[in-house]
Structure formats: structure tokens, C-alpha cells
């Protein structure tokens, strides 16, 4: 799967989409779901929680392993994708469609520090070893 050019990324395998209302939507990358294998349980952060960039704020558990999800930006959690509770496999089937949560950033300048698709592909390639 090609890494979408209209998204931004973190070295910890989250993708970030900027929405027109100023919030950002977060999910995990195709590379991340492939590494994890069949996802069976997702725990996104609760709406209303304040997070700092880089903070552990959720969990994705596959049959094989548990992976922490890190907040790519500081701000307030404004939404979590409740659909994933009953259909966690959507993360495997459609990683860039199955979003996990939304943040209203408190410091939009942090957006400039994220990776673009090419930058993330390099990170993912090194992670293969």
C-alpha cells in the first residue's frame, strides 16, 4: 500500500490528517498494522483528556502484541472512534480510513515537525530490519 501524500506521520507510526475545522484526526499506518498483525482490541483516549505531544494515550492490541499509541500533538481529545470497539479488524482492512481519535491542537506550530510520506517511508524501511 502506498503511503498517502495528503497525510502527515510520526516516527512512532501514527498518521495525522488536518481537518477543515482545525482539529486533526489520528490513526496508525499500514506499516504499523502489518507489523502488529490481526488487531483484536483498540483503546483510544477518552474525549476531554488533555495530552502532550509524545504522551502515551492509547493502545492497539493484536493477537501478537500490544502497541502504545502516542499523541502526535499537544491538545484536547475531542473525539474517539467508537466503531473500532466492535470492529477492531478495520485497522487491518483500512488503516488510513479507520481513524482512532481527534485532537484539537493547542500548539499548531507542532504540525510543522511531523514527517511527510517520503520521510515516513524511510522510517518504515529502517524498521523492517
Amino acid at each position, binding site marked *: 500500500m502506498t503511503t498517502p501524500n495528503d497525510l502527515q506521520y510520526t516516527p512512532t507510526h501514527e498518521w495525522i490528517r488536518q481537518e477543515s475545522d482545525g482539529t486533526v484526526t489520528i490513526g496508525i499506518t499500514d506499516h504499523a498494522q502489518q507489523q502488529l*498483525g*490481526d488487531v*483484536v*482490541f483498540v483503546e483510544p483516549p477518552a474525549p476531554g483528556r488533555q495530552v502532550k505531544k509524545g504522551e502515551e494515550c492509547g493502545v492497539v*492490541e493484536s*493477537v501478537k502484541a*500490544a502497541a502504545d499509541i502516542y499523541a502526535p500533538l499537544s491538545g484536547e481529545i475531542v473525539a474517539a472512534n467508537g466503531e473500532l470497539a466492535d470492529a477492531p479488524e478495520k485497522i*487491518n482492512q483500512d488503516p488510513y480510513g479507520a481513524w482512532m481519535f481527534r485532537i484539537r491542537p493547542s500548539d499548531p506550530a507542532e504540525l510543522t515537525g511531523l514527517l511527510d510520506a517520503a520521510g515516513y517511508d524511510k522510517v518504515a524501511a529502517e524498521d523492517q530490519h
Partner: protein
Amino acid sequence: MSELKSTPLNAVHRELGARMVDFAGWSMPLHYGSQVDEHHRVRREAGMFDVSHMLGIDVKGAGAREFLRRVLANDVARLVAGKALYSCMLNERGGVIDDLIVYAMPDGTYRVIVNAGTAEKDTAWLQRQARDDAGVELTPRRDLAIIAVQGPQAREKLWAAWPEARAVTEPLAAFTAAVVGDSLVARTGYTGEDGFETMVPAARAEPLWRALLAAGIAPAGLAARDTLRLEAGMNLYGQDMDENVTPFECGLAWTVETRTPRDFIGRGALEAAKPRYTFLGLVLGERGVMRSHQRVRLAGGEGEITSGGFSPTMNRSIALARLPVSAAPGAHAEVSIRDKWLEARVVKPPFVRNGKIIVKDS
């Protein structure tokens, strides 16, 4: 890192798109796309596993029987030709060196199948025990490949792929084996389903695998093998037991034969010591996945998960655990998962057999 060992089916796994991993120094298929799909195929239809990393060791000679009666905690005197026996091999302290299956071959010899991760240690141990015994000849069989075909349709599909095997293997009862040409076919497995384990000359592995594939048997990787054996309540060496745990502390008391006065290695220690834990199952009542080494607390004290994971058949997390000796099925427990104590129930494994959930859900 030293180079990984590969089975005769390595290239075929890659051709089938397997995700290959290092397992005990072997390059082995973890899955071929989805371990959960592979799991369901085995429970509902038929799947096959390359387990050629496990080692067969032939035990021959006039002293073979008495040798095995001394080095194994279960008693091969129970075996008639064509029968298989599951046993632990113990050290002098009663700790488990390995768990294995021993086959009484139709020609009066024995074949022992040991785990991949312990194969070298086991071979050395057996050779040391046989050192002064001129009547015992040990032959490691790295020239053999092992393919396990498991599931409710496993036998029919195997016969479709290998018609010559049908006449000899159709009458086989569970835990018995027969020779088919240059191969051994046993009605054994590690999934809780019916099926066969086949030991074939390495050169025959690929043609057999392709014929089984053409008969509609799904290739399944080590990941599915692990969730299947966990549901079946079968122990995994290195996780559920090791050299510091006795069979009485890992749910394997039923494999230790003590009714006869036979002197097997570890017997004295087993009879002198009291078990420190009881070994039971857990079913998680909440969302989350139990993993090995997580702490368990219950009325009688604390315990530890030895094998934990997600059960695709039950759609919830299950585990095997070392618990305080007072623990019993039905008890309420809590498991420490990622800094939270989650509710679980103590149960008696197995969880799933022959495609059905059998663990008592009360």
C-alpha cells in the same frame, strides 16, 4: 547474528507470501496473511503446519525400552507397536527438560519428537544418559520433514492428496501411528482438532505440501499454531514449563506414571517436594489481552500468567497461569494488564476442543 536454519519447505513458504520469523534459530512462517483466518480454517476445515524444526530422534537397540523407561516420566511400557505417548523428560530435580511424544514404531524401535528450541540440549542429555549403555543407539533424524495436517476435514483432505495413505491410516485411533512407504503418519496434533502429523523424507516434503495445498488445506503459521494450542489447553515448553518447574506445577501430573516402582530420573525429587503452584486457565471478563508474565491476584495469593493471548474462537482473551495451590475453577481473579487490574475467572482448561467451546462459562 548467525544464519537461521531452514526447513525443506522454506522456499515454498516464501512463495506463498509467508511472513518469516526467527523461531529458536529457525526461519519459520509466522502467518501467510492473517493468523486469525488460519486459526478458523483449522477449527472449521483443515490447515497444515510445517513443524520440521522439531527433531525426531530414533532410539534403537536391545536396551531402548528400559532406557526410555528411565529417562521419561511417563512409561513406554504402556506402549504397544504403533502407539504414541506424551511425556516429560525430567532432570534430577524433577524439573522439565522438555515435553515430547514418543512413538513405538512397528519394528520394535522408538522415535522421540522433541521441541526445536531444546533439540540440541535434549540430544546431549539423552546421549549422556545412554553413554554407558551399549544396548542403546540414538540417531537424530534431521533428514525428516514434519507436516501437521489438522482440522475436522484434515483426514479426508489428506487422503485426497495422498491416496496411498488411506488404507493404512483410516483405521488409526487417536494417538496411534502407521508406516506409509518411507513415512510415518500419526493421528496426533497440537491444536485440539482431529488430524495427522506426517514425518516424511525431506525430499518428499515439498511435493506432499503442494498436493495438500491442492486438496484445499490452508497453510497455517506458528502464530495460529500458538492460539490453537492455547485454546486446546496444551502447554508450550519454555513458557508454561521449564527446568525449574515440575510436571505437577504445570498441569502435567497426568503424564507422570508412578504406579509401578520404576526408577525414572527426577522421581525422587518429585516425591520429596510439594508443588508450589497449581496450573489452571483464566478467561478475561473485560476487553484487553492477557500476556505471559502478567501478575494475577486472587483470594489465595498471587500468581503469574505463563501463556496468554486472544482466543479467536471465543472472541476474548484466555490464558494459562501458575496460581496459588488453593486456587480452583470458578474462583474470581484479577490480572494486571497495563497498570490496571482487570476481572478474570479461573477455569479448568481446555477451552476449545473439536471446534467447540467447552470451558464452563459460569
